[in-house]
C-alpha cells in the first residue's frame, strides 16, 4: 500500500464515518413530534371556604383564585362575599380545585383520600376560634370541615395552610412536612 493510497483510504474512512453518523443525527432529531402543552393535575387554582351559620343566617364565601396556578405571572384574586356575624358559629367546608384542566380536578378529594398525610392549619388574630370537625383514619384532625366561632366585631386575618405530612403527621400544627397551600383572607366581623 503506498502512502498516498493510505491517506485517501483514510479520507474515505473519515467521510464514511460522517455519513454513517448522519443517520443517527437524523433519527434522533425526528424521533418525537412537537411537544404539547402540559396541563398539570396537581395544580391548585382555587381554594374556597363555604361558611354556613349553624341555625340559619347568611352564608359567607371566601375564595382564592389563581387562573394560571403557581407558574404564571397573573396575580391571584381574593374574594370575600360578605362580613361574618359576631358571636356566631359557622360550619366551614374547604374545597380545593384545579381549574386548569377539564373537567376540573377535585384536589380536596385527593386530600381526603390521603387524609393521614395531610393537615389543615389555621392561624387567626384570636377572635375567631377554629376547631376541627373531621379526622383521618388514625383519629388525627384533617380540617376539610371545621367549625368557626366568631367573637366581637372587628377586622380579622385568617391564614389557611395545608401541610403535606407523608409519614410524619402527628396532628400538631405546623408539624413536619411541606406546605401545599398557604392563603390569607381578610374578613370583617360585624355585630
Amino acid at each position, binding site marked *: 500500500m503506498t502512502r498516498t493510497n493510505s491517506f485517501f483510504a483514510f479520507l474515505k474512512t473519515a467521510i464514511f464515518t460522517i455519513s454513517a453518523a448522519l443517520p443517527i443525527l437524523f433519527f434522533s432529531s425526528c424521533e418525537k413530534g*412537537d411537544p404539547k402543552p402540559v396541563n398539570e393535575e396537581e395544580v391548585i387554582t382555587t381554594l374556597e371556604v363555604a361558611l354556613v351559620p349553624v341555625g340559619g343566617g347568611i352564608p359567607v364565601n371566601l375564595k382564592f383564585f389563581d387562573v394560571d396556578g403557581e407558574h404564571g405571572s397573573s396575580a391571584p384574586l381574593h374574594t370575600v362575599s360578605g362580613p361574618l356575624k359576631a358571636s356566631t358559629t359557622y360550619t366551614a367546608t374547604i374545597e380545593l380545585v384545579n381549574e386548569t384542566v377539564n373537567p376540573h380536578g377535585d384536589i380536596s378529594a385527593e386530600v381526603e383520600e390521603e387524609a393521614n398525610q395531610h393537615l389543615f392549619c389555621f392561624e387567626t388574630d384570636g377572635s375567631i376560634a377554629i376547631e376541627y370537625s373531621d379526622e383521618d383514619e388514625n383519629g388525627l384532625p384533617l380540617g376539610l370541615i371545621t367549625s368557626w366561632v366568631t367573637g366581637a366585631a372587628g377586622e380579622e386575618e385568617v391564614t389557611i395552610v395545608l401541610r403535606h405530612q407523608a409519614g410524619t403527621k402527628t396532628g400538631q400544627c405546623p408539624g*413536619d412536612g*411541606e406546605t401545599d397551600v398557604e392563603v390569607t383572607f381578610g374578613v370583617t366581623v360585624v355585630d
Partner: protein
Amino acid sequence: MKRAAVFLILFFLGVAINSYAQNCQETLRGLIVDEENIPLAHAAVSIRKTQTLIISDANGTFVFRNLCAGTHSIQVTFIGYDTQVFEVQVPSAGAITVRLIPSRTVLPNVIIESDQISRSASQTSAGLQEEELSALHGKPLGESLKEIPGVSALQTGPSIFKPMIDGLHSQRILILNNGIRQEGQQWGVEHAPEVDPYIASQIEVLKGAETVRYGSAAMGGVIIINPPPLHQTEKIGGELNLGLMSNNRMVVFSGLVEGSMKEGSGWSWRLQSSVKKGGDYHAPKYNLSNTGLREFNFSGAVGFKDEGRGMEIYLSSFNTRLGILRAAHTGNLNDMQRSIESNRPWYVENFTYAINHPKQEINHHLLKISAYQQVRDLGRISVLYGGQYDQRNEFDIRRSGRNARPSLSLNLISNVLDVSLDHEHTAHSGSVGINGTMKVNTNDTDETGVRPLLPDFQQLSGGLFLLEKWKNNKWIVEAGGRYDFQHLKVFTFINNRDLIKPEFNFNFLSGTLGTTLLFKPKFRLVSNFGISSRPPHASELYSEGLHHGTASIEEGLMRKDGDVLTEQSLIKKEFSRKWISTLQFTGQGLSLDFSVYYNDINNYVYIKPTATRLTVRGYFPVFQYEQTDAVLMGSDAALKWKVSEMIILNSKFSYIYARDTQHDDVLIYIPPAQFENSFTLSLPAIGKLQSFYVGLSVPITFHQSRAPMVVYPLDIDANATPERVFDFAPAPKGYALLNARLGFKVPVHDHSLGIILSGENLLNTTYRNYMNRLRYYSDDTGSNFMLRLSYNFLSH
C-alpha cells in the same frame, strides 16, 4: 438509531481490519536533556536491534523515521553522562524526553515523559495521578477533584458534587471523558457530572480557557479523565478494588480485566465495572435521612494499534440513583424559614439503605469510536465520534399516588464528531481540526404531568480551529484561533398554550496566546491569555417555572414579565478574557507551583431575584437569569517540601476574589479561601509491608466574607424585592478538619495487594460548608473511616 450504531461499529471494524497490512512507518521523536532540563546536543541515540544511530541536534532533539510498531530498546550515550538504556513503545503518544544524569551521580534514573497532545503547552494544569486516585476511590468525581488547588465543588448534599474551576461551573466547564466531550444534564446546580471516576488512571484539570481546541464549553477550564491506554499484554490482567466507608455504610466494588486478542495482532481489550451501595450519611449529631445512593457502571473497550494507525471502540454506561435529603424539600418560604431557624433537620429517621422521595435517577450511555492514521509529511489524522444518551429523572413528593412518576424527565441525545490533524516538526508543531455537535433535548411530559423547567431544544454546532506552537530550548510560544457556529431551536410555550419555535444562529470566535519560559534551570514560567465567547445555553435563555423542592420560580433571559422573547438581537453572548500564569520551581527537596489569574467576563450569566409572586403556597421569590459584567481573580499555590527521604510536607492554598462590576456587588457561590497542610511519613519496607506511608492533613476552609447580602425567607414579601443578589442565610463560619491516611502494599503471589486506611473529619467536627446548598437545612457529614483494598494482577 440502533441500526445506524451497529452499522458504524461494523464499518469501523472493517476499516481497522482492512488496514492491518504491515508497513513500518512510525516516527519516534524525542528530546535529550540534562538534569536541569538543558537540552544536550550531539548525544548518540541508537536503536539497539537495528543498530540505527542518530546524533541529537543543536536543540537536543532526535527523530527516528520508518520504525515498525512495537517495543524498541533505545540507548543514549553522551560523554560525562551515564549511558541510558530503556524500552519505548512505538507508536508513542508524543515526543519522549530522556533525562541524562552526570556520571558522578549515583542514581542512574531515566525519566520518560510523553508530551500531552490534549492540551496547550502554555496551559496551567494540575492533576491527580493513579496513586492519589486510588486513595480517593469510591468518591464522586466532583469530590475527588477538590484535592486539586483551585478546584472546588458546588454541592447538593453529601453525594452531589458539581466541579468548579477558579469560581466557574456548569456551562463554562468542559469534561473530557476518555476524549469525548461529556454531554449531560448539568445545567442545574443540583446536577453532577455523569461520570464514573473509577475508569480514570489519571485526571488532569486545565485551568485556563481551552476554548480553541474544545469549544465554548471550555471557557472556565477542562477536566480531562483518562483511562489507561489499551495496550498489548502477554496474559489477561486486571485489578479488583473494594472500598468500605463507615459514614454511610457504603460498599464499593470495582473490577477491571484486560488482555490482547492474539499476541502481535495489535488488538487489545478491556472490561471494567463498578457497583456502589450506600445508605444515609450522617452528620455528627444526626442522620442525614434519605441521602443513600446506588450506582452501577460498566464499560468496555476494544482497540487496535499498528504502525502509525489505531482505532478504538469504547462503550460505557453510568447509572445512579441518589436520595436527596428529605428535610431539604420545602413547599414554601415558611418551610424554609423553619429549617434555617432550626438547628436540626425536621426529618431525621434511623439509618437506612432505602432511598425514598425526593430522589434522582440518572442513566448515561456513551459510545465512542476513534481512529487515527499517521501520514508522512502531513502528520497524524484523528477521527473521533461520540454518541451519548443521557436520561435524568427527578422524583418529587407528590399527591395521590403520583410519587411513582418523575416530576422531571429529560432525555438528551448527542452526537459529537471531531476530526483533527496534528503535525510535529522539530521547531514547531500544531493541530487543525473541526468539531461538530448535535444535541436533542426532550422532556417526557406525558410521564411527568408537570410543566418542564427546561424546554425541549435542538442544537447543531460546528467549530474550526488552528493551533500552532514554536519551540526552542528556552521557550515555547503558542497561538491559536477558533471559529464556531451554533444553531439553536427551542420549543416552548406562550402562556402554556401556544407552541413557539424560536431559532437562533450564533457565530463566535475564540483565541489563545501563550508561552512557556525556561528562564532558569529550575524555574519555569507558564503564561496563557485566552479570549472566548459563548451564547447562553437553552436553560439560561428559556427556563421557566417552579423549581420543585426549592420554593423558587426561575425564569430565563428571554422571559420577561410573562412575555416570551424570540428576537436574536436580544441575546448577548458571554465574553471572557482570562489570563493565567504559573511559576514553577522544581528543586531537589522543594517544589513550588504558584499561579495567578484574572478573568474578565462581559455579559456574565447569573441568576438573580427580581420579584416576588403570590401563589397558592404564599409568596415565592422569582429568580431571573440576568447578565452583568464580572471579574474573577485569584491565586492557587501548592508547595511540596521533601524534608528527608522519609518526610514530605505539602501545602495548598487557593483564594478567589469575585465581583459584579456593573452593580458593584459580590457574586454568589464563590468558594471561600482554602488552606491545607499535610505531612506524610514514608517508611522503607517493614517486614513484608512495602511502600508504607502514614499521613495527616488539616484542610482549613475560611469564612466567605464576600457572601451576598442576607434576606431570610420570611423577610421576602411582595413590596420589598431585594435589589441585589441575596442569600437566604449568612455564610457559615470557617472550619478546620483533621484527616489521616495510612497505606501499604503486601505481596500476594507475584502480585500485590494495596491497603489504604483513611479517616476524614476524625474529630467529628460539626460544620456547614458555604458551597453546599443543603447548608440551610443540615450540618455537613461527620467522621468517615474508609478501608480500600486494591489487588492488581496486571501483567505488563
